[in-house]
């Protein structure tokens, strides 16, 4: 029997984790640079800017989530490895792409927005609630992509 199906599925899981994780690390990195600058000036803002820095970190987690669901669906995590046709393997690969690609791009831009929001916190710490909203707006699209990825992966017949 052809093993190609499982290879495609694994490639999908890898892409979801890899791209979304890369996006988050870029984003958290950008925000972290801004956060460090603020803490140099005023260490008491540490908690607030740390929260801001973590905001772009969620894409990586969404990627992990889709990757995990995919692995458990095809039975790579213990149990019987499913006999996938190349077609359903490719379907799973396609299902993993939204969170991978959107996670990569939104992670980067959410990081930039977080860095700007950290600027708000630096100057007006009482506006934390509003500052937090701007990065959260970017995240919406990662959540939508996550949703489609989850729905697609769970509903593909294996």
């Amino acid at each position, binding site marked *: 029997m052809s093993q190609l199906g499982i290879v495609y599925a694994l490639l999908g899981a890898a892409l979801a984790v890899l791209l979304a994780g890369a996006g988050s690390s870029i984003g958290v990195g950008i925000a972290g640079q801004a956060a460090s600058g603020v803490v140099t000036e005023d260490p008491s803002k540490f908690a607030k800017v740390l*929260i801001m820095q*973590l*905001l772009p*970190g*969620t894409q990586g*987690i*969404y990627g*992990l*989530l889709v990757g*995990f*669901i995919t692995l458990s669906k095809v039975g790579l*995590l213990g149990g019987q490895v499913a006999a996938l046709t190349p077609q359903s393997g490719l379907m799973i690969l396609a299902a993993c792409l939204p969170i991978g690609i959107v996670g990569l791009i939104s992670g980067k831009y959410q990081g930039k927005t977080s860095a700007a929001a950290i600027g708000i916190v630096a100057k007006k710490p*009482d*506006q*934390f*609630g*509003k500052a*937090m*909203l701007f990065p*959260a*707006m970017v*995240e*919406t699209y990662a*959540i*939508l992509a*996550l*949703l489609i990825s*989850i*729905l697609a992966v*769970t509903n593909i017949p294996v």
Partner: protein
Amino acid sequence: MAVLQMQRFSICALKKDRKAILEELQMLGVMEIDTSVVEDEGLQKMDTMESRQVFEKQAVMAEHALDVLQKYVPEKTSMLDSLAGKPLIDKADYDRIVSIRDELMKKANQLISMNKEISENNANVVKLENQIESLTPWMSLDVPMTSKGTGSAEILVGTMSRVMTLEEVRVAVSEHEPDLDAYDVQILSADRDLTYLAVVCLKKDAGRLEDALRASGFARPSQMVSKIPSELKVDLERQIQQLKTETKQIEDKIGSFAESRDDLKKVADYYRIRADKYQVLGLLPQSKQTFFISGYVPAGAVSILNEKIGQAYNCTVDVEEIKEDEEAPVLLKNGKISTPAESVLESYGLPKKGEIDPTKIMSFFYIILFGMMLSDAAYGLIVFGACFIVIKKFPRMGEGMKKSLSLFMYCGLSTLIWGILFGGYFGDVFDVVARVFFHRQSTAPVIAPLWFAPLGDPMKLLLFSMGLGILHLFTGLGIKGYTYLKEKDYMGFVCDVVFWYMLLVGLLLMLIPSSIFASIAQAQITFPPFLNMLAKVLAIGGAVGLLLFAARDNKNFGLRLALGAYELYNITGWLSDVLSYSRLLALGLATGVIASVVNQMGSMLGDGVVGAIGFIVIFLVGHTLNLAINLLGAYVHTNRLQFVEFFGKFYEGGGRPFNPFKENTKYVDIKEEN
């Protein structure tokens, strides 16, 4: 659920009571001073700037002294101490501080000057150390640099501008003065680009020799030391030692001040209170014998003021309603469960004039939405328990902190309930433990979800999330309608609220029997024909109403229609708002799935002792991380749903917070005498 009614409270009293009345007002802390409305013709304001600055300076000095104490005898603090809030002191203690304030300020002064001495000492030590450093290359010189030599011999001390050996120096000299011979060169030391040397020669040759050396880069040292370098070094070291002992003594002395720390804190607060009082005093219009105070007071506090000031002093008081064009400050009052959510509202903005306080309705949704995003019974229990214990343990914690923690406590409770409904207990920890350690064969969950497992039927939860979203948004639109009705703007109510309800309900009713909905819900719902008819009527009626009346203020009919059509286009906004609630599903799944990943990793070491220990370690670390990251996510996204989707429907905010004249202390609270 209310914005407290404010009233304007004005006092006209005799100057001799001024101090007492101001102090009473400050202690009560219920009035925001605003004297801008008093007609001050013939009245004068006192210039209190100078005395205020004196008090502020004293407060700053006491704080500076506290900083010094903190630097040399740090107070032991733990993470939790920041939650403890300000301690309460009684009036007698406060009076004691007032009576010894001069003494305390003297102590503060001493502390500050001792700190200055220490920093001067430290600077001197550095200077001396630099001096020693610059002496190092000359250490093997056993005469002073300024030595004149003996009767017929002379000593030249200096540096060559590059590294040279003895031979090179002699060669360099003989190139210029081939017949000079009676001299002795001693190389003292050399570093990267300098050679330090001492040359002994006959007095008569000294000039010629120096010129010859200069041609090869010889230079006298810039600083001549009149002592033998090694002796000088010992001397300098002794001085450093002395300075260090002195510093140590001063530090010990600072340490003996540590017991005054609490008193210094109180005195700093005392001066801050006085500075505030003088600031207010500067605002008050005064005549020769009388003075006026006016300001905003919550309606409920008027009777206290009447009793404590109106009846206690020889004065007239006047209570009026706030005028139409006046923007009164905003103070909220809510029930026990809703009060904590005020902090969320405050971070968006307080209700502006004419808006109602949405805290109560918002708190209800906030707690539900938060719980749904975290949705794990064990996590909920942890959050609830932690907040509960901290609140009980530190009854005097700051107001803002208490609000946030109470809110999280309720959210934890809601998380617990959602967790039980969805069957999440640290993800699937019971199943994993039962399978790995107790070799349970069955694949059915150990504790079945009360409702259903989201991962098993995500579409169902998606529909539920969006349904909850529609309910949330409709509530927001309803509040907008309520505001219109309260202002008796019936036209606005019908055009901006009722038409939207008609259109949206109509569209929903048309959507439910459609095939798209059927494929999502996996169930075909058929309505009786009259309901289908009703749906069409509602949708078309609403759409036409919006088209015609959304821009009803516009005179130009063509423009009015165009703007109406634009309003109708907002239906896409509603669609995206509803879709936004899909994050409830996504975040809920994220918590559960990551928790399962943690459990799965923990179980990979198999059963047995090693497996169990590994499992416990991975379990603790993994779930702590997962809880932290998902708490953050739930907090951020609940706020977003409230601020963007919910408030977007009806709320603007922008009210000014009530800022009463009160004892604005930093370190302690003073108990009122009663």
